């Protein structure tokens, strides 16, 4: 411990103004603050502050993602590790580059994007595509808007959308057959194992061949699909954690689920088995718990969160059941992101109206 502190202290002058690596100060500061709490003090009242910081806030999301991450290792094997590492490295490089150019701090928001991104990709996707996707997502989805906190869209979804439109083949076929048995694929490193033509995700099969995967498989996650989205059990566990931490807005989650359920029930004419199937299949759970609740790209008003969730739920059901696309969560959330500012406008106007009699 002492050794590390000394090492950092020794290296610090090299990164200060005038030192040889002065331009990499944001990177040094990030590592320094990652290891040891900074001694920064409040400059004005309030003189003491709450212990919550952005690092902690973001790490709560990562903790909630752990069950789904573990499920992805279990079902699809060790290939997840390089995918996650590539995602962190490539996306992190963009983040650092922008911090260095802007001379600003490195933001922790990327810690979530870097983990979330591989979880919404097919587990057999070539690693260079993971890199290209995350670079595009962070660059176009976040940095050109000004970085964390100013982005309009969820960066991970922007990256995925880009990959889907550019490399439709692998994005729709680089599946890995989920491992069975007690250890799943925990001991294996599998490349793409499934013939893209003959096999498809449950949602695709339901849409094209009207074949329905058993609900138990959807619940536990031994199905084809994006690496982190298959196991409803793991996602619900993570979602419950998010709600307990208070990091995700229960309003968005509740209204997405309810509106999705109602809309799906209407479209499938009340077949409850199919409604349940659609709840568990595809990216609905992952998207609702971890993407729709992204506070930055969603609305900030309390009422707006309900409307935003409803919009996403309805759009997902419509895309899944009324368009040629079998999965709709990604486009629904991106559309929701697009509407978030205008939803906020309306609800801020209502908020102002409510306050007009306050003196």
């Amino acid at each position, binding site marked *: 411990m002492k050794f590390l502190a000394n090492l950092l202290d020794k290296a610090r002058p090299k990164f200060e103004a005038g030192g040889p690596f002065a331009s990499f100060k944001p990177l040094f500061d990030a590592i320094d603050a990652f290891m040891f709490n900074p001694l920064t*003090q409040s400059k004005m009242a*309030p003189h003491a502050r709450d212990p919550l*910081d952005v690092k902690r806030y973001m790490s709560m999301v990562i903790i909630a993602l752990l069950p789904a991450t573990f499920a992805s290792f279990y079902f699809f094997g060790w290939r997840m590790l390089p995918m996650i590492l590539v995602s962190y490295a490539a996306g992190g490089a963009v983040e650092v580059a922008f911090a260095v150019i802007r001379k600003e701090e490195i933001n922790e928001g990327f810690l979530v994007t870097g983990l979330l991104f591989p979880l919404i990709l097919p587990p057999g996707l070539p690693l260079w595509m993971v890199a290209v996707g995350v670079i595009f997502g962070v660059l176009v989805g976040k940095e050109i808007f000004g970085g964390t906190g100013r982005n309009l869209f969820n960066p991970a979804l922007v990256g995925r959308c880009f990959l889907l439109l550019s490399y439709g083949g692998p994005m729709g076929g680089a599946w890995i057959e989920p491992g069975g048995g007690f250890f799943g694929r925990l001991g294996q490193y599998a490349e793409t194992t499934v013939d893209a033509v003959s096999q498809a995700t449950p949602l695709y099969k339901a849409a094209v061949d009207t074949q329905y995967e058993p609900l138990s498989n959807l619940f536990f996650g031994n199905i084809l699909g994006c690496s982190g989205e298959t196991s409803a059990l793991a996602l619900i566990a993570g979602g419950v954690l998010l709600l307990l931490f208070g990091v995700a807005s229960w309003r968005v989650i509740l209204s997405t689920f309810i509106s999705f359920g109602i809309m799906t029930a209407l479209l499938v004419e009340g077949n409850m088995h199919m409604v349940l199937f659609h709840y568990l299949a595809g990216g609905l759970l992952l998207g609702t718990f971890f993407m729709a609740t992204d506070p930055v790209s969603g609305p900030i008003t309390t009422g707006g969160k309900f409307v935003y969730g409803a919009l996403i739920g309805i759009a997902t059901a419509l895309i899944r059941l009324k368009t040629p696309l079998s999965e709709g969560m990604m486009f629904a959330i991106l559309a929701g992101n697009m509407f978030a500012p205008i939803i906020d406008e309306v609800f801020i106007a209502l908020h102002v109206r409510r306050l007009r009699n306050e003196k």
Partner: protein
Amino acid sequence: MKPRGGYNVNLAGGPSLTVEKLAPPEKLCIPLHSRHLKFTELRVADGDSVSSGQALAVDPKAFSIPLPAPCGGTVGLTQLDGHIVMEDLTGPAEATHDPEVPAHVPYDPGNAAEKRRKLMELGAWQFVSNARTLRVADPQTAPSAVIVSTVHLEPFVARGSAIFGDNINALIRGLEHLQSLLEYQEIHLVLPDIKVDLARNIQKIIRGHAWLKLSEAPMQMRYPFDNPTLLARHLGLFTEGDETVWFLPAAGVIAFDSALTYSRPCTKRIISLAGPAVKEPQHLEVTIGHPIDNILAGRLTRDENVRVVNGGILTGVEIADKQMGIDAECSGLTVLEEPTVREMFGWLRPGGDRRSYSKCFTSTLQKTFEERLSTSLRGEQRPCVACGQCVTVCPVGIMPNAIYKYLFSDELEQAQRLRTDLCVECGLCSYVCPSKIDLSDELARAKVRIAEELGPAPGQQTEQKEQTPTENQEEGEA
């Protein structure tokens, strides 16, 4: 408006209710500036000798509130910048309680003007503030209502029960004096909603007085519900938008009694000396101008790396120069330690030892406990991540995050539209912000800018008057 939001910061080192009377020091350093008062018009010259109670200076912008000399002595104007130094002190006659003073003030509403003049001369008027602006109230006008509050919730300022001690009679007499200044206006006495002896005794005594127009307002003990502006809103006293509501804290009522019953100038204050860096947190009775280093000597856990705050941790001001004496408005000194040890992977720890407004620490599973907070920012400044904690904690129901966004892009009109003017500067939004943005300060500065650059919101007054009936109807139907 119902109370909403709010949060109690459970700071370790809360003051006990014992009040230690500090011996008068050898010299006094009386600051000419305090939070709301600026005694710029000097009434004495360098080297003058003054007698106890004589006005040293007045604040020309606050109805010429005087700064009475705490005792006799020689005045020095040049030794300390911004201070009056008094030496060769001849202490005032030791305050003895006259046993013949009746427990009640005879009902005598006739000489209100004379009483106001006396309150002003003896320095007791400075406690009467306008609940909306928090500035000293105009002694020539009549308020539409008066709020008297015995509750002080910020960690840490002097507690109401310490200020009264066992002298409930002084409180009752102070209230009676206050009543005699008024005509028909009601006095709202704000008491804690928990059953404490003080509150129960007060209730027992005041229920017998038909002519004391008091209404008891029990209050939730959550910071910042003791804020004068908030109290006035909660009690429904701001309906037109231009009412004058007076606010008197506990110390003010005692000052009224001391000025009008004993004709004593207000030169002593009961302050709290508390915080994690104080060995024995308690209350002190000090003379205005008592040197602060004299007060702190030997009472702190460490001599260096401490921050002394004039007031509480949420709204207080750091005392930069410890030479400064206790100012005329001081209600407490809070001493915090400055962080000196860098904790490794601090953000990863489960956090059973740190209490948070959020639920991101295992302390959520525990009962509340007092925490030795330091002046550490506990994180780094980041852009807003729209977590919404400032909105839920805000006691006035505005959206600090949305206002901050507009201020960031310099859209002052939008900030005005979002009712930045309702902010009471309690500091909670800054306290809870995970991005460590000084929201409260941003809002406070925006308030000033809006008032200076934009004036009152266009059409707000007229629109409000037209729409009030429909609003009431809607509420009635609901």
